[in-house]
């Protein structure tokens, strides 16, 4: 079975390097969104507006899944 992996491993190091950078940037963006979600959830769960805490958790969890999925696309170590 041929996957993206073989092509990826044969690609020029410049390409994999760009890919690596893109993935890291995406991860940083996602983590930033999660920090914002946690802050929002905390802020509103403290007093009244309890309704936001659960959606914030769902969002945060979804982003975690996406982040772990992104790890799969990290280029292999070059040897």
């Amino acid at each position: 079975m041929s996957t993206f992996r073989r092509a990826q491993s044969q690609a020029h190091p410049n390409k994999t390097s760009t890919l690596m950078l893109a993935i890291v940037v995406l991860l940083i963006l996602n983590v930033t969104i999660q920090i914002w979600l946690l802050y929002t959830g905390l802020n509103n769960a403290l007093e009244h507006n309890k309704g936001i805490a659960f959606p914030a958790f769902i969002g945060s969890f979804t982003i975690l899944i996406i982040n772990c999925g992104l790890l799969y696309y990290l280029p292999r170590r070059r040897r």
Partner: protein
Amino acid sequence: MPNNKEKDPDWKNDFPINQSEVTEVTRRQFAKFLCLVSGGLATGSAFVAAKAAFFPGKKVQGLHRVCSINELPVGGTRAFVLEGSSTPYVLIHLENGEFKAYEQKCTHLSCAVFYKPGSGKIECPCHNGWFDAMTGEVLQGPPPRPLPRLDVQVTGNDIFVTAAKEEA
């Protein structure tokens, strides 16, 4: 012992540490670390959601007498605490004759707030935050949430407070 100079000390053989291995972080490691942080944040959100869903804060129970009407002139305020709790509250006699009770704790960083007589506003001196004395809403400044409110009931000559009805 000058002839020993080149030879590594024994501990280096016992604990072989490669300088570049321990000080340099690869992008791959960094990406994995970001995922770990992401997991931590998701867990944090889970705790917040669980706390909000299963351990709601204690509500003020029943009626509490604060003082009698003639102890509180128009524009005056009176700080009080309810027995069994240490949360400071403030009772305000507004210029229009209404009584209002709020938590005397700024929602920003918990400084004590004060009613500014004649203005209809509650002031937080710490970072110049202002609340509407009628509703507790934030008028300006850094506080993120309105002041928590207590309902006031006047019965005869006495002023009572009770938990505010939750508005949707």
